[in-house]
């Protein structure tokens, strides 16, 4: 029985280019109040383009309908539970959108004089302070544009620090449960990657770590809680093993939603970490970004932080570029400022107590789901869950149904799927992270849905394998997309010519 949704009509809609017709307009410019300049004269004939070939021409009404119709083809957190593990899809308060659009913030130019940018600078200083307090670290840079960009910044900081000690080292250790960005980042930062196997509880194997850490190792990149949603209880020992051999501990903060107000990485030995403001601090994902990936460090790494840093004297803020040991800039200007404003609004709305309560509810929700389906799905690691729980499709696979199929069937029940087939250490993983912003009713519906699908796997596996059945777009042929990539629209004649 599907209780969360009923199907409704959705409008068909062609591409903008297929709506286009010469002379249609969606704009009107004011009359020019200065003499018009002839482009060919000002720029030279060869520099002026004839036209933008293929560019659309559509009217305002059509634009409104086009994007409104397309929007109805998306699922979104504002429609319901979005339990993507590792992604922390929580409610994005509208207040944050409102304040980010206040004119004096939205229209601020990064090069306006510092005396006329004190408000924008204060936003950064205030957010840095709250992030330091939340993480227990000593300094924060807000410059990285996203989580992976923060990882990269963090690893470069470690590299700069070790280089300053006279030995950059050559390897970064990464657990086999890590996000794909971790090894990709280490490689981008010029390091070799060595994988550390997890133990039978899904945690870092201390003995394997002991064996792996020698004087060629620059750092270990760890996610805590890790990607199976389990707190690395030996984290302080992990830090000690690294530190006694001159290596650094990097923490991927993707799962910080499990820790805010409960435990602080700075208190358990982490040297450097990034935060995903678009996860833990509720800034909207917007279909894939923008995010922001501030990096928090202990004192010894601080001299290497990207420039500029903000300094305050007599209540006046100013940028300081004079940092000899800095790794340099990782992004132009001051990072994704608009995202920083939203995150600060979120922190202010919760306050210290509220942030802690949010963490409690996030962990409560994950455990409630875990308990609700534990008897129907295989739970490979039994250690207590934090903010997410990870199951395996082992039992369903016996009927020929895999995690990807169960995910697609969840869509019919009105839910966005969980994260599929990650982490890699769990065969056929179902990685579920509800976040704190779900009601008991929504969680109960989700549990019912997963239980009902488990029944269907036994009674009618084909129903699950061929899902989704109720969406306007049925199962999408991804193989075909990759085999013959069509990456932009072609006019019908153009397409015909290409085929000839």
């Amino acid at each position: 029985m599907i209780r969360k949704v009923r199907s409704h009509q959705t409008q068909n809609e062609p591409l903008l280019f297929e709506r286009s017709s010469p002379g249609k307009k969606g704009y009107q410019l004011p009359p020019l109040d200065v003499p018009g300049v002839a482009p060919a004269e000002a720029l030279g004939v060869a520099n002026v383009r004839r036209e933008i070939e293929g560019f659309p021409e559509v009217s305002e009404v059509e634009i409104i309908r086009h994007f409104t119709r397309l929007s109805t083809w998306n699922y979104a957190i504002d429609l319901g539970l979005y339990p993507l593990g590792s992604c922390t899809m929580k409610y994005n308060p509208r207040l944050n959108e409102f304040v980010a659009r206040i004119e004096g913030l939205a229209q601020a130019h990064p090069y306006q004089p510092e005396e006329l940018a004190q408000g924008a600078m204060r936003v950064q200083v205030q957010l840095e302070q709250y992030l330091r307090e939340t993480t227990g670290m000593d300094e924060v840079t807000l410059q990285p544009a996203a989580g992976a960009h923060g990882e990269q910044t963090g690893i470069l900081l470690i590299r700069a620090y070790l280089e300053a000690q006279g030995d950059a080292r050559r390897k970064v250790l990464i657990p086999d449960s890590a996000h794909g960005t971790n090894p990709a980042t280490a490689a981008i930062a010029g390091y070799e990657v060595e994988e550390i196997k997890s133990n039978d509880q899904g945690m870092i194997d201390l003995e394997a770590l002991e064996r792996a850490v020698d004087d060629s190792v620059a750092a270990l990149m760890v996610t805590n809680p890790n990607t199976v949603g389990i707190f690395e209880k030996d984290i302080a020992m992990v830090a000690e093993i690294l530190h006694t051999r001159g290596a650094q501990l990097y923490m991927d903060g993707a799962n910080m939603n499990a820790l805010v107000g409960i435990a602080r990485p700075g208190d358990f030995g982490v040297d450097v970490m990034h935060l995903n403001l678009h996860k833990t601090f509720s800034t909207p994902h917007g279909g894939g970004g923008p995010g922001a990936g501030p990096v928090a460090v202990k004192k010894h790494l601080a001299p290497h932080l990207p420039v500029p840093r903000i300094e305050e004297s007599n209540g006046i803020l100013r940028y300081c570029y004079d940092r000899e040991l800095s790794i340099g800039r990782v992004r132009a200007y001051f990072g994704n400022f608009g995202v920083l404003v939203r995150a600060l609004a979120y922190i202010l709305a919760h306050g210290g107590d509220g942030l802690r309560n949010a963490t409690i509810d996030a962990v409560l929700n994950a455990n409630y789901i875990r308990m609700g389906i534990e008897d129907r799905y295989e739970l490979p690691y039994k250690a207590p869950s934090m903010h997410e729980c990870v199951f395996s499709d082992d039992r369903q696979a016996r009927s020929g149904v895999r995690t990807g199929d169960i995910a697609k069937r969840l869509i019919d029940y009105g839910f966005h799927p969980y994260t599929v087939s990650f982490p890699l250490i769990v065969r056929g993983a179902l990685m579920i992270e509800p976040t704190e912003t779900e009601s008991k009713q929504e969680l109960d519906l989700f549990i019912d849905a997963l239980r009902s699908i488990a029944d269907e796997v036994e009674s009618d596996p084909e129903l699950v394998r061929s899902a989704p059945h109720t969406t306007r777009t049925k199962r999408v042929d991804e193989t075909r997309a990759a085999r013959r990539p069509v990456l932009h629209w072609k006019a019908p004649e153009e397409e015909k010519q290409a085929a000839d």
Partner: protein
Amino acid sequence: MRYLPKSPEERRQMLAALGMGSAEELFSHLPADVRLDRPLDIPSGKSEYEIVQYFNGLAAQNANGYPSFLGAGVYRHFRPVVVDPLATRSEFLTAYTPYQAEISQGVLTTIFEFQTMVTQLTGMDVANASMYDGSTAVPEAGMMAARITRRDKLLVARTVHPEYREVLNTYGRHQTLPVETVAYDAESGQLDFDDLDAKLDHETAAVIVQSPNFFGVVDKTREAAELAHRYGALLVVIFTEAVSLGLLEPACEADIVAGEMQSFAHPPSYGGPFVGVLATRQKYVRQMPGRLVGETVDSEGNRAFCLTLATREQHIRRAKATSNICTNQALIALMATIYMSVFGKQGLRELAEQNLSKAHYLADEIGRNGGQRVFSGPFFNEFVVRTNGVGAAEVNRRALDEKIVGGLPLKKFYPELQDALLVCATEVNNRDEMDRYAAQFSG
């Protein structure tokens, strides 16, 4: 708390279902020495009203409502009213990366449209779903060129945005991609081809130029391409002012085009979030970083879109990926897509012509008041001027007295350009404010 949808009773029921008497038990497995034993030192939660007041107060400390002649990579353009109501629809704003294609066709379709319009504007064959911003798109383009050519040296024009070059240096240093700068011609403000020729060799992976460059001057990309290709190097063309593409011949001779599309519907927002662009030729598509959306069909044969060529990406290739990029800037790319559809083929050209006309008017007026344009190369909507004895700082100080934010003093980035300002005018600058700013240049 208004963002937490549970009553105390529901919380109690849920804990009871887990066999727990209190929420503390959820964390009882954490070692005591890692637990935070005090409340976070952050003031208690505030109401909407207080938070709006707080940010209004901060906004009031910024230059609020001043006419401005700052550009330098971040441009003020009018944002059509339809952009925000559409882009902030819940289904766009609060969706994740479209991994589940069946319920993400909305965002996938808009990204496909974005990719298409970027190729139309840049004259390239393929474009990705967006990069973080223009500055990070540059090193990604450089690394891509290094992979393609299997060479490692990057030559970057000094007229590429100085902060973009700083980002390139940060990345390059750790990728062992040596970065050398190429001088500009002091007269034209364009690339110094003698210097480029002298520095090009068969180790050079790419020549990176910007057009219009940081001085606002339209550069000679065709000549740069010829020279680069003669040495087997790629040409990477950067842009920071997307509106210029409405009027300027695209750099079709480039191998990679990377740039910033903030101009298309995103306010300056103190430098971010913006939306980077990366486009290239068909033959290099598998070396591209970032997300790509492709067309396909669903099981009923209907047109559908999905993320594709993921084997380049970190979640599949891990340490061997083309980039560590995961997040892109889909929402800002959506705003740009809406913006491009509002202006369309004719409007973007008209808009570009207005920018051209405004900037040339302002340049003439500043000239009439004693300022001198420094470079002779053709310019689009910004230009470099020297004050005639008044001093760049003094011109801007006088302007601020009139509540006008002047152009960017260049000496910070170009010590040889003491006393020079990079001045930008767009369609939002009216004649009166331009006249008033120009008047500050008179001795």
